[in-house]
């Protein structure tokens, strides 16, 4: 080990004599060399005078290390000016690379001892903790690096990556409610089928002393066995959970009874060191190139690039994560429950959020019309909406810990005493009865199939694992494809080298250096999923929370989507709460290229890693809603949408074209409608505005089935024409309004011509946009992409017309249907 000149000496010092030669054995504390230093001292003589005298003092330098002297860096007479200069190299018999509980694992010496010669504490030589189940074993950085390289070589050899698996709500869901046991014992219970497979266990060393002999009920996520089976061929699996060690081991016993998948690679809260975050560096201190993580929470991983976030598995509704009280608080996301439940589900925090989400769901089932017998199926998905935000509260002080464990205790107690599940099942049954009664009175059009069998509260219909497995497979393949590619390229280089051609590199790099990085491969794959999608959230993120940093937004961004707070030209999707028609939704509904979808669509995309078909997730729009606003002459927010982003947008051109397109699409529809109809519609809208604008929720609640996108189109056009009248032309906005006007009253030939001309002038991406509009339900490529498809104007027009015809037919059909009703 290299010995440097320490601080605290009186520099400069001059070496006088070296006491040892190379290869000499050195004891700790033995003098290495002698030196002198100069300083001024005050001397008094016999007459009482004092004077400052420069004096030389000799001193000897003692070795702080034992070993064999390897090399001197100083000679007799060398002047050392400052601390930190190289003095001597000493070979130590043991470098204490691995330390166990303050002792060196190699020589058994106590590392915590310190004395006056200690310049660097021995315990600091090994600071990296990389074992799963022990906190007292520490290794040095060098040792950790070696270990990791070893592991990498081994994994590359067997073509595997590392996968860190979270337990709670990712692969399993656990609750403490006794109700489960009762249901399990009662084959007649509607939930019997669902809970049949639930495994229960007790923890011997339960810390919650007053909840003695607590039974845990653990439900495996459907398909877990197959998942582990398949994934373990591609990945080396680790468990990393925020639960206690005992709990983690109990779960591991259940999901991996033969210990073939996880072995002993289990890391729990007890070993993690902190309760707040999980970090890859705890297990892979140096290099995380080959590591993937699956977890249901992104915040505790700081949205690491290695993370594959999965939907939370919520089987026992309302149970949440029993170990979550140790994690940063979750912030609930407003769920798309039925209108009646909205008030309940807004802005609740943490476990309360989970509780109330569960509650809201039950209500929502009850509120749905009886023909939706499939309604409960969506349940498993609904609760997944509860999301969380990174709220890093301070470190792990004992008070906090105390409070957290109290909280956990409380959660468990409340689960045991209140039995939310039982309550919910009762509520569900009750709701069913009322629904049945209602049905009898109403005699609804759709005959309800076997209503009399009680619906069960719990549903075993989660298929997330299948998707995760597919994703992991893709990453695995991409990784090793790239590795192979790099390797062949590299070997080519080596052959060239062998041939005698001079290679710029002296030494062929280690195989490990060409290992591709999952952190670049995976984001690349993910980014492609929602590339070009621009999302606006509405009624999803609770008030008072920054949308950009909300969980769902971060998640969407990790898939390449853009998230903005307000509608603008780039917006392609509005993710909304179907039960609440917010201003943004209403605004967006006037733009056919903006798809208004539920969060389920987003979650589908997330879990499948591909752009899901929007069609099943579109939120039907009420014509009333549109009418209400379309009729209003001075609706300011709409203007915002028109001009604000238009001017600010970088690609003004593209943005305008997009707008034009929309107008053109709308124009044929308007032609079909006579002026009288027009007038009457306008009046109707006006009326609606007057009466229902203030009381929006009621209007929504009524949910009349006469949803009609056509109306929205009209209204927006009306609006525009009105606006035109109000304002002068000339500015960009003016011409914009001009356009719309032209489209509205397409009888004015001159305007149309002018417009055509402009279209010709502007080489745009018309077709692109139009095709997207045409197939509104299908994944559309980059609807707002500015000038990528340099098409000429005429071709654009043609395509346009095709699109128009289709749209026209569609809209007409819709209109007719409405009339029938």
């Amino acid at each position: 080990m290299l010995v440097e000149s320490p601080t605290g000496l009186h520099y400069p010092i001059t070496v006088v004599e070296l006491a040892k030669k190379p290869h000499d054995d050195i004891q700790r504390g033995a003098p290495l060399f002698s030196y002198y230093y100069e300083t001024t001292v005050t001397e008094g003589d016999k007459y009482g005078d004092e004077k400052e005298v420069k004096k030389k003092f000799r001193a000897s330098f003692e070795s702080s290390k034992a070993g064999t002297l390897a090399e001197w860096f100083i000679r007799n007479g060398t002047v050392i000016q400052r601390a930190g200069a190289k003095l001597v190299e000493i070979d130590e018999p043991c470098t204490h690379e691995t330390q166990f509980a303050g002792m060196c694992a190699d020589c058994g010496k106590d590392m915590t001892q310190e004395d006056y010669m200690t310049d660097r504490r021995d315990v600091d030589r090994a600071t990296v903790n990389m074992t799963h189940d022990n906190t007292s074993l520490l290794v040095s950085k060098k040792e950790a690096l070696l270990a990791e390289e070893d592991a990498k070589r081994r994994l590359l050899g067997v073509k595997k990556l590392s996968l860190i698996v979270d337990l709670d709500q990712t692969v399993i869901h656990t609750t403490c409610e006794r109700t489960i046991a009762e249901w399990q014992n009662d084959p007649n219970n509607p939930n019997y089928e669902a809970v049949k497979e639930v495994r229960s266990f007790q923890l011997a060393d339960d810390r919650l002393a007053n909840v003695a002999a607590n039974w845990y009920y653990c439900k495996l996520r459907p398909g877990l066995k197959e998942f582990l089976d398949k994934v373990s061929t591609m990945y080396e699996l680790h468990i990393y959970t925020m639960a206690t060690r005992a709990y983690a081991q109990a779960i591991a016993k259940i999901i991996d009874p033969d210990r073939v998948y996880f072995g002993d690679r289990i890391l729990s809260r007890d070993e993690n060191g902190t309760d707040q975050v999980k970090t890859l560096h705890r297990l892979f201190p140096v290099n995380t190139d080959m590591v993937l993580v699956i977890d249901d929470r992104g915040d505790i991983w700081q949205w690491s690039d290695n993370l594959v976030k999965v939907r939370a598995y919520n089987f026992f509704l309302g149970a949440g994560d029993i170990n979550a009280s140790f994690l940063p608080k979750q912030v609930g996301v407003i769920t798309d429950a039925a209108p009646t439940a909205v008030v309940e589900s807004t802005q609740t925090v943490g476990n309360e959020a989970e509780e109330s989400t569960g509650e809201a769901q039950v209500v929502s089932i009850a509120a749905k019309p009886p023909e939706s017998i499939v309604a409960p199926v969506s349940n498993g998905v609904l609760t997944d909406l509860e999301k969380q935000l990174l709220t890093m509260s301070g470190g792990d002080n004992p008070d906090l810990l105390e409070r957290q464990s109290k909280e956990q205790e409380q959660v468990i107690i409340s689960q045991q005493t209140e039995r939310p599940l039982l309550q919910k099942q009762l509520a569900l049954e009750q709701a069913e009865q009322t629904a049945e009664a209602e049905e009898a009175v109403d005699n609804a059009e759709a005959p309800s199939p076997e209503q009399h069998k009680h619906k069960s509260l719990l549903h075993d219909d989660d298929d997330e694992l299948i998707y995760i497995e597919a994703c992991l497979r893709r990453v695995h393949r991409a990784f090793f494809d790239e590795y192979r590619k790099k390797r062949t390229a590299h070997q080519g280089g080596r052959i060239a080298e062998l041939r005698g051609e001079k290679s710029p590199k002296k030494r062929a790099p280690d195989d490990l250096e060409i290992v591709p990085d999952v952190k670049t491969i995976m984001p690349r794959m993910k980014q492609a999923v929602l590339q070009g999608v621009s999302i606006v959230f509405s009624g999803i993120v609770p008030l008072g929370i920054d949308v950009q940093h909300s969980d769902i937004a971060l998640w969407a961004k990790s898939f390449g989507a853009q998230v903005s707070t307000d509608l603008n030209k780039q917006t392609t999707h509005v993710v909304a709460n179907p039960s609440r028609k917010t201003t943004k939704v209403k605004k967006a509904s006037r733009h056919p290229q903006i798809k208004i979808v539920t969060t389920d669509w987003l979650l589908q995309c997330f879990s499948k890693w591909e752009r899901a078909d929007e069609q099943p997730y579109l939120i039907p729009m009420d014509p009333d809603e549109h009418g209400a606003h379309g009729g209003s002459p001075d609706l300011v927010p709409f203007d915002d949408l028109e001009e604000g982003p238009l001017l600010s947008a970088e690609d003004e051109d593209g943005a305008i074209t997009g707008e034009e397109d929309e107008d053109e699409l709308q124009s044929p529809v308007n032609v079909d409608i006579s002026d009288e109809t027009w007038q009457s519609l306008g009046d109707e809208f006006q009326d609606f505005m007057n009466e229902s604008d203030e009381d929006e929720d009621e209007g929504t609640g009524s949910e009349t089935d006469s949803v009609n996108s056509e109306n929205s189109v009209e209204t927006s056009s009306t609006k525009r024409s009105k606006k035109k009248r109000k304002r002068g032309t000339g500015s960009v906005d003016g011409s914009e309004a001009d356009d719309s006007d032209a489209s509205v009253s397409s009888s004015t030939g001159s305007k149309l011509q002018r417009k055509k001309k402009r279209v010709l002038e502007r080489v745009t991406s018309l077709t692109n946009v139009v095709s997207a509009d045409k197939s509104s339900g299908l994944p559309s490529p980059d609807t707002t992409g500015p000038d990528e498809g340099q098409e000429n104007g005429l071709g654009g027009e043609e395509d346009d017309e095709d699109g128009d015809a289709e749209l026209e037919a569609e809209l007409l059909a819709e209109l007719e249907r409405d009339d029938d009703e």
Partner: protein
Amino acid sequence: MFFLYELEKTIQLHPSFFGPLIRSHIHRELLAKEEGSNTGKYTIVCILDSFEVSEGQVVAGTGHAEYTVHYKAVVWRPFRGEIIDGVVSSVIRSGFFVECGSLQAFVGRSMIPSEIKYDANATPPQWTDNAEQIIEKGTQIRIKIKGLRSEVDKMFAIGTMKEDYLG
């Protein structure tokens, strides 16, 4: 190594235990508190029957009575250089952990004979010389203590199996 040791312990008893069975209560309390505990130097293995209880003294304020108990116990104290038997509790790349009763020992890679290699691909991971010697979780093993360190209620040791008759 095991020793017979004379120890002293102050026990506080709740007033509800005062009565004719007070001695058995004290005895029970002593057993519950002391047996299996670790002082940092040694572990109390077993408390022997013969013990002396001092006069009780009521603690002001709480009503608890305080008794000083003298007792004999079998204690176990590990020494450096001692050879002990244990069970392997965990196997990792840098060595393996051994449970020797209350003592947790670690045998590092350099303390394992060089012919025994780490095999991470085996399930569970193991140290093996590809013959009859396999060290995995649950294996019984004999090690020599090379270093000892104690914290408040725990003892740690570094072990070696690189000498004759060990392993």
